[in-house]
């Protein structure tokens, strides 16, 4: 029987790459986003019954609860959750509007905690373990000018990973963070040309990362071979953080 994995924010960027790879690997996938977008709509049409999408606003617990219930009704209790949905806001903290700070925390941190809570409530009722993967960021470990609030949310996710790993390990549920470095996705589109050049210069492997660099680790962590890895933050950054 195909395992069911929930991926938040699967309509574009890294989330879409994760959804696509999971389908290729034989998983059933539920994903949510504010809108499906052209690429996910096409994937829904060509994939058929193994992919489920529902509109949901991460950070709105009623919305995410409805999504989890619908996903469970469609494919059963999930084996895994990939907390991928997130937003970035670039701005010096002293002038970043508080409403944007609140939005960052609500989406990136509170929303991920709500998703983990909701999915764990399903997993606890079923023996057999499970996987939770939080998509963190190297920014949460190293910081970056203009991304203080974003960094705080990602560091918070890493804390969630460590504490939750201790909490649910007895049920063979593993919890890990995957912390990409600077990826060449829509979210990095706000970087100036100078910032991109600086990041590339400082990266030993000499380029920005891509979703394809990150997806294999997520597939590995979801698999049985990763059953003894938990509470870790695994960084994929081309060496910029070393």
């Amino acid at each position, binding site marked *: 029987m195909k395992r069911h994995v929930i991926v938040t924010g699967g309509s574009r960027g890294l989330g879409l790459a994760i959804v696509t790879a999971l389908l290729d690997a034989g998983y059933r996938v539920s994903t949510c986003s504010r809108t499906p977008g052209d690429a996910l709509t096409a994937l829904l049409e060509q994939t058929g019954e193994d992919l489920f999408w529902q509109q949901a606003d991460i950070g709105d617990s009623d919305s995410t609860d409805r999504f989890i219930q619908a996903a469970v009704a469609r494919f059963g209790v999930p084996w895994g959750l990939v907390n991928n949905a997130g937003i970035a806001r670039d701005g010096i903290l002293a002038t970043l509007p508080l409403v944007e700070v609140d939005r960052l925390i609500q989406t990136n941190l509170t929303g991920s905690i709500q998703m983990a809570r909701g999915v764990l*409530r399903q997993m*606890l*009722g079923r*023996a057999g373990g499970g996987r939770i993967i939080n998509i963190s960021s190297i920014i949460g470990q190293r910081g970056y000018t203009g991304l203080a609030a974003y960094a705080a949310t990602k560091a918070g996710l890493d804390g969630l990973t460590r504490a939750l790993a201790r*909490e*649910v390990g*007895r*049920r063979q549920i593993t919890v890990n963070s995957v912390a990409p470095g600077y990826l060449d996705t829509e979210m990095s589109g706000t970087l100036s040309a100078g910032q991109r050049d600086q990041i590339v210069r400082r990266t030993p492997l000499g380029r920005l990362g891509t979703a394809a660099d990150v997806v294999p680790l997520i597939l590995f962590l979801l698999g049985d071979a990763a059953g003894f890895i938990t509470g870790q933050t695994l960084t994929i950054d081309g060496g910029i953080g070393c």
Partner: protein
Amino acid sequence: MSERHAELLALIAQETNRILTEKGEAAVAITPDTAFLDGPLPFDSLDLATLIVALEGVTGKDPFRSGFRQFSKAGELAALYADA
């Protein structure tokens, strides 16, 4: 003890023993004075969370929706569900 309270206590006993059995523990008699944690019951905080989730699934009620409410014994938990 009201009939409703007794039914809830029976449900709590059933679900508690299901969780214990899944852990490989022997079933035990659950009374209103049975303490979930820090007593002879081989139950930990994660087992208790599992019990709460299971009870919500059966009853459709969540007495903790508005915040945490103190309880330590099976009878106290049954009372929370009876009032919910």
